[in-house]
């Protein structure tokens, strides 16, 4: 029997359903393959009172897989020339990512120039290092790697070392869409991880949301520190530099450590004599666990820090005018605090310790261990 040229094949309902399901299945498969390229955004969690004054570079959004890779790299000593020093060596979580030493020891057993800084809340910091010479986490990450006294292995060389590792091949694939392991991607992943290190769960934060009532000592210390009951300008003005919910204002000040500073600080960056001995104000969050203190770790205890500001401020050409006005005029050498005032302020400073941050497993070494082992 001849088939008519205009004969149409009748498609049954059943065939239609099967066909549709098949198409759906196909499109789901391709969607899943596609999502390994576009990794899920990582949800940043911070209180509204931190504000949104930060920049995430357009070419390095924070993704779950990028953070996962960055975290693995952060804890991997393979990124150093002797295979023993990772970022975490000098930035330990239980010390809010500082290391408890005055100066740090890198691969060649010589010490670094300055004290290791805490990495909490760097998303909001635009001037990194004690002298503010770096302006992004991407820029900063390669510097300790390059430094012969720190990790002594540029990122490109680390990338070469990781290239044959199947665990990293998978992590890079998940984070960037393919298995190309490059120094640039390594650094981007590290920066993503660092941006997630947010500390906002201390008793001080609970106080700000009305969920914590400070003790009398803590409240006195808080009021003194924040200048709440200041009746005149010549008062304790810690909050000028160390105020705001992030416990730092991004300023560069000479806080009177030396009459003639041996470390010129900011002056080395700006070449401006007026910047001699100026250093960037660091956050006081978690300060109880980030001893020793100052750019050269000269003070071992908070009491020594308070003693400095109270009784040992050194005058110089570049001493901060805010400290000078309040504490170094009329022949004084400090804020002249009483013992009780010092203890009160230290009680307040202890309110800034965020134990959830210090123990959050998301910020610690990868569960699977280094390189998946």
């Amino acid at each position: 029997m001849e088939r008519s040229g205009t004969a149409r094949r009748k498609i049954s309902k059943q065939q239609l359903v099967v066909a549709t399901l098949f198409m759906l299945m196909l499109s789901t498969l391709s969607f899943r393959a596609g999502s390994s390229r576009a990794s899920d955004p990582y949800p940043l969690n911070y209180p509204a009172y931190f504000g949104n004054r930060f920049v995430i570079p357009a070419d390095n959004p924070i993704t779950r897989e990028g953070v996962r890779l960055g975290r693995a790299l952060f804890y991997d000593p393979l990124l150093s020339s002797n295979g023993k020093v990772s970022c975490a060596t000098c930035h330990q979580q239980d010390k809010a990512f500082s290391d408890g030493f005055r100066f740090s020891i890198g691969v060649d057993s010589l010490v670094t120039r300055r004290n290791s800084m805490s990495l909490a809340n760097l998303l909001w910091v635009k001037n990194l290092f004690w002298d503010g010479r770096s302006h992004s986490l991407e820029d900063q990450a390669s510097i300790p790697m390059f430094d012969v006294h720190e990790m002594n292995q540029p990122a490109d060389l680390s990338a070469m070392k990781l290239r044959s590792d199947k665990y990293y091949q998978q992590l890079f694939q998940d984070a960037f869409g393919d298995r190309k392991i490059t120094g640039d991607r390594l650094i981007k992943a590290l920066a993503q991880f660092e941006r997630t290190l947010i500390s906002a769960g201390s008793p001080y934060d609970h106080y700000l949301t009305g969920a914590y009532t400070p003790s009398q000592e803590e409240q006195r210390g808080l009021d003194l520190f924040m200048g709440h009951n200041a009746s005149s300008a010549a008062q304790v003005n810690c909050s000028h530099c160390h105020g705001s919910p992030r416990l730092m204002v991004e300023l560069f000040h000479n806080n009177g450590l030396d009459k003639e500073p041996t470390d010129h600080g900011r002056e080395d960056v700006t070449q401006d004599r007026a910047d001699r001995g100026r250093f960037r104000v660091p956050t006081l969050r978690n300060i109880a666990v980030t001893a020793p203190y100052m750019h050269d770790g000269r003070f071992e205890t908070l009491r020594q820090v308070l003693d400095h500001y109270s009784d040992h401020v050194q005058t110089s050409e570049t001493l901060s005018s805010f400290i000078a006005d309040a504490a170094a005029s009329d022949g004084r050498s400090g804020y002249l605090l009483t013992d009780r005032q010092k203890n009160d302020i230290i009680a307040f400073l202890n309110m800034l310790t965020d134990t959830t941050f210090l123990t959050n497993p998301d910020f610690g070494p990868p569960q699977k261990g280094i390189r998946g082992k």
Partner: protein
Amino acid sequence: MIRIFFVASLVLITGALAFAQTAEEPTLRVSGEVMKPLSLTAGDLSRMPQAKIKAKDHDNVEHEYGGVPLVEILRAAGVTLGKQLRGENLAKYVLVAAADNYQALYALPELDPEFTDDVVLLATTVDSKPLPKGEGPFRLVNPTDKKHARWIREIRSINVHYAKD
């Protein structure tokens, strides 16, 4: 031979002096949404329209501050003021930055005489003397502000930008 040596040392010394001059003299930089970025010394400012304002500092004593109204500096840099301060130009702000990186902003209408009679002064002298170390060489004095948080000391730069939304 001696002549060459003499001329060479003169050149070197002059060069060194000139370098020393530019390295030491503080300047005020104006940039951003300007027709002409500026780098002003105290000398440059002394040749601009002057004003004097009486105001009380933190010591609660009245002083007389002398200098240039901030609006005149912006005018010299070609910022959209007066008749031009309308429409999109009203989404601009002036960010004043100090030597220690302290920053505070002003809206253009706060500074423009066609919007306000208040004067915000870029001061260079107090009571006819140069501003003291730690305050100068350039400081904002703004008696309209009851609190002094925007009386920025040791000003290094003035930047005009559009607000981002």
